[in-house]
Each structure stands twice: as structure tokens, then as C-alpha cells.
């Protein structure tokens, strides 16, 4: 009987922590579409997508993606490795090219592609951020709306 009570208590405590952890992860998700950010139970990071209509250089539209290892004043305690993939969403027809805040580009030859995968980047345990300036073109040369999707894979090291 005592063993039973002990096991029930353990299970109750485990369930409590499990529920608490899931809630934390879900409530960390904010701002859909243009800007999203996530704080999971283990990795703290923030991603902001800025599609200001004035972001045009030499008639090329671009948007900015800012990735940081800080959220609400807290910095992830462990180093993070991350990688971005940019592609079209909902049958859009865009081609992409990026330059990051250190001057690294998605293509040394300046090639625009319909899917681009970044190199693997690392954040240390210090507060860090990196901005990706993503230029978008459409083959037609006409005014067009492009729906894009960004997948970011994170891994704590």
C-alpha cells in the first residue's frame, strides 16, 4: 500500500512538471506571420521578420530576418547552432538571395534560388543577434506578391 502511494505521488509530480513544461513552450509563441518568436523550455531565442514596404534597394525588394539568442532579457545559457531555409509558400514564385550582418551571402556568385539553405551559424552564451537581409525577385519582372516561408533549425550545443 505504501509502495502504491509512493508511486502515485511520483506520477502526480511528473505529470505536473510535464504539463507545466508544455504550457511554457506554447505560451512562448507570439506574433504570427510577420514576426514570430519562441521560447522553449530549453532554448531561448527570438526571430523577427520585418517586411517594411520601403525596404527596396535598386528596385530590389528585401526583408530582414533578425535571429537572437535572447528573449525578454534572458540569454540562452548554452551555445546554439542554427540554420535557416528560405522558400516559397502557397505557390509563390520568388527567388531569394541573402546577405547577413557579417557580409556572408547565400551565394558567392550572387545567384538567386527558389530555395536557399544557409550555412550553420553559432551563437555563444553571450547576447548575440544576426540580421539577414533577404532580397526577393520574381522572374516576370512585374509587381507581384510573394509568400515566403522560413524554417529555422535550432540545436543547443
Amino acid at each position: 500500500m505504501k509502495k502504491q502511494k509512493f508511486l502515485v505521488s511520483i506520477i502526480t509530480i511528473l505529470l505536473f512538471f510535464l504539463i507545466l513544461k508544455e504550457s511554457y513552450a506554447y505560451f512562448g509563441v507570439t506574433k504570427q506571420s510577420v514576426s514570430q518568436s519562441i521560447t522553449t523550455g530549453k532554448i531561448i531565442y527570438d526571430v523577427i521578420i520585418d517586411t517594411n514596404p520601403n525596404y527596396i534597394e535598386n528596385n530590389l525588394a528585401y526583408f530582414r530576418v533578425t535571429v537572437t539568442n535572447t528573449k525578454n532579457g534572458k540569454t540562452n545559457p548554452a551555445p546554439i547552432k542554427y540554420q535557416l531555409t528560405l522558400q516559397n509558400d502557397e505557390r509563390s514564385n520568388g527567388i531569394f538571395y541573402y546577405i547577413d550582418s557579417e557580409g556572408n551571402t547565400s551565394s558567392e556568385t550572387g545567384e538567386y534560388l527558389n530555395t536557399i539553405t544557409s550555412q550553420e551559424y553559432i551563437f555563444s552564451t553571450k547576447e548575440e543577434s544576426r540580421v539577414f537581409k533577404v532580397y526577393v525577385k520574381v522572374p516576370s519582372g512585374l509587381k507581384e506578391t510573394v509568400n515566403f516561408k522560413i524554417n529555422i533549425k535550432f540545436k543547443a550545443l
Partner: protein
Amino acid sequence: MNKKLIFLGTLLIIIGIILAANDSLSYFGTSSYTGIITIPENNYCINNGITKLSDCILVMENYAETPEAAKTYIESKGEATTNQTAPTITFQEMSTEVSNTTNGVISTTAHFTLGKSYTFNATTGMFTLTNYNNNELSDEYIDYYTCGSTTGTYTSCTTMYQIKAYEKVESGSSTTYKVTWAIRYNSKVLESLDSEIGLYATTDDEGTSYFYRGAVENNYLSFAGYIWRIVRINGNGSIRLIYSGTSTSATGSATSIGTSQFNSKYFDPTYVGYKYHENFRLKDDPTQVNYTNISDNNIYYYSDSYSFNEDTRKFTLNGNKISGTWESVNQEAVASYPYTCLSTNENGTCDFLLRLKGYNSPTSAKVNYIAYSSVDYPSLLNNTNDSTIKGKIDSWYAANIQNKQDSDGVSYASYLSDEIFCNDRTFTSGDGYSISKTTIFSPYYRVLNQKKPSLSCTQQADKFTVGTEKGNGALTYPVGLITIDEAAFAGGVYLSANQEYYLYTGQTYWTMSPSHFNSSPTNAHAWYVTSTGYLNVSWVTPSRGVRPVVNLSSDILISGGDGTKNNPYTVALPNN
């Protein structure tokens, strides 16, 4: 009993597995984001039936279907945050060891302002000396910091030096101090946020004006064989342009037509005028001023009488004279030889004379002025004489706009309209004309104190136009300069470096706005844009870049381009 235990044990194992899996998920997360971006079309305006340049400028802001829709969008952005640069910039301090034993990294024949320490402002990119004094360079000042400026007291700068070694070179009566080894401090842009970019709206005297702000890249325009940057659509629909050289990639001095003094004369408030009037009278002003522009090691001449030449309008010392540093002869000078030009030449002349009344310090004296200077404020506004810079601009305009034709043989002047260039000489303190009082002109108060620029020009005499319908009719040609208010709306801020906004060229250049008249030393000051993009004030006498400003008529058509660097707007006259 056993069955229950087996069940609970199994449950425990399952929960353990779930927890472990959850942990690994959080360590190997994948997140997805979506967004929408509008890709601009080449020749958007022409393809969509928008023919007027002013309409095209508006719709290109957000690829709106109509100018009205664009205006609604622009006005919905609200007021520009003019107490911050656009874009907002975060600077990071950098340092490099530099040496130059031949000419010196920096050098002076006078004093440096020397500080024991400094602060660095990451928002403005400015270094500021602390615990400083203005003195001759000596061994005592090794490891001190200086902005390297050689006149006045300069305590803020974008490049600063820590002195490690220096050389004193004596040649005849002059001494040069060369800093031969130093640590140079400057900064780089760590982060630049395009928080405010594009067109914003405010009011001018004729309606709503739409002005460009921040690091815009779509306001290039080709006209009369030159490249211009669009500053704003004026309230009446005409389009204000600032000269930007002959290529969209021009920088530095290539973005100006040359350099000029704002005015070659400086000793009266009238010289802040784009045109000025010398309604002068010989005045012995009893107002006592603490005069501070005295060098403590210069040997000056002092006399017991003086004369004034009506033709040259210069003062000369007469009668019995003495000479010496101000510190060494001050008692004798005040008692018996009270007149001085503060000249190191015995026969030197001056535009105004000091009557010495008392000693403050080796570099400061109590004085009153004897001057041939403005009688009152209203007559100062009579706009009879061209400033030096107006002469330079008018000559350029006559040769390059007025007397130059397009491919149809039409003078480029036909494309332009006569709009107001504001030389705002209204003032918030002082009296606007006395040399013994400091006058603060309104642009100084608005842009430096309040950080609230305005496109309104309130005083008729300050509204420079060719005709008298809108303004003073004092211009020869419809050309002028940018105002400091326009530079502030564009993203410039007083003493806040900004190498990102479109008015940054890498060269200093004059604006049309008066700043202040200083009673000690007596100097008329005007506003200018510095080579690191911040807004500043200076005496009117230094030579700085000249960037003419003109206004295209409101009915000018777009003939091509989209305003980008590779494809600037081109313009045409209306068909009728």
C-alpha cells in the same frame, strides 16, 4: 497487488520516455515562419498610367494604386521622430595606433583642448572629453585625449586622439606642435535599424509636404545632366531637389559644385543673411562683454587712441602703444592703453575695436565694443548684398541651368518653379542686430534645443524667391540651399553621427539656416551638415561644400526611371 504495481511501473516508464523525448525536442527545435513581400515592378508609374512626377513619387512609396491612397498610407505613419537620427544607429568604439613623424597625426600652432578622460556615446557616435582644459601641448599632457581641433574649445568629435608622443617645432616667431604618435579612436556602425525610412508628411506654408527620411534609395533624379536627390514634395506639389553630382555613385566633394564661405564677413548679425544689408553706424556700445577669444601666449598691441577709415571700414590703433601678452600688461592697458584690435601686428587693422575695461583671466577680458555695425533689426533684413555663397550658386545656375537647354532646345530653367528658400532670421533671444548681445536665431532653438524642425517660413523678408508673389523677390534665379529643418526631417540630428541617411555625402556642406550671433567672440554662425552626417553650427567664414537646391514645377512629368540608383527618375515638360 502485483498487477497494480506492474501497471504503475509501466506508466512511470512511459512518462519517463515522454519527458526524455520532450527534452530532446527542445534541444533540436525547428520553427517555421511565413511572411508576404511585394516585389516592385519596373516602370511602375508609367505602366500604371501615373504620369506626373509628384504623383509617381507618392505611389512608389508603397506601390499604391493612386496618389491619394499613398498619401493616406504616408500620413498614417505619423510624425517623424526628429529627436533621433534616421535610421537609428548603434555605434561601436574602435581604436588604432597611428604615427606620422613628418607632418604629425594632428598638429597646431595654437592650443589643443586636452582631456584626462573621455566618454563615448554609442547612440550618437560622439566622443566627449571630460576633465579638460585648453592649453599648450607639453609633457604633462602625454596620454591625454584631444579632438585635434585647433581653435576654440572643442570637446566633442567623431574622431579622437590619445597623445603618446609629440614634437615642438619652432620657426621664427611661430611654434608648431605635432602629435607624432597617438591612439586614434573612432567608431563603426554596429547596428542600423531602418525604423524610419521613406516618405513622411508635415505642413509647410502652402499645404502638406511629403519629405524623404532615412536611408532611402529611391529618390534619385536625373535633370539637366546632373543627379539630384529629391528632398520633398512641397505643399503646392512642386518638387524640391538637392544637387548630387554627375553620377548616382558620387560621394564627397563630387556631390557639390565646389566650396564657398557662407559669408566672407562675420562680425555683425547681418552676415547670417543669404542676402544681407549693411545699415551700419559707428557705435561705441557701452554694454560690457566678457571677451574670451584671447590667446594667452600672443603678444598683442594696445593704444591710447584709434582711428576709423570710412572707406575701408577698418579700425587702426593710433597714438602711444604698448605690447605684451594680455596677462602681462592688463593693468597698464586697462588704465592707459585701453584700445586693441588683438592684433600681433603693430599696424594691424580690425573690423571692430575692443575697449578694455578689466581683467578676467589670461584668455578673457571685460570689454566694450567700438564697432561700425547694424543700427537696427528691420533694416538688417533689407537683403541688398549677396552673401558669398549666393554669388557662387548664382554663377553655377546661370551657366548650368539657365543657359543650358534640353534636347528640344528648351532652357532647363523652364522646368523649375519659383518656390520659397527660407533663410529664417527670426530670433528667440537677443535683439537680432547688436554685436554686444548674443542672438539665438529660431533654427537654432528648433533644431538644437527643441529638436522639432519646421518647414514654415514666417518672416516675409526671409522667404527668398525671384518674384514677390510668395516671397521677398530678392533672388536672381530660383535656386538656393537646403535648410537645417529639411536636414533634420531627413534624419540628421545635432551632434549625432549618421552616415546612413541620404543627405550624408562624406563632405561638409552649408545649409541656408542661420544659427546664432555670438557676442564673444563676435561671430555670425550658420548651420551645416558635417562630413560624418551630423548637424552642426559654425562661423560663416569657413569654406564648405555647396549643394544647390531647385524646385521642379508641380506639373513636371515622369519620362522614365523609378528613382533608384541604377534607374533614376527622368523628367519631361508637360505637353501643353
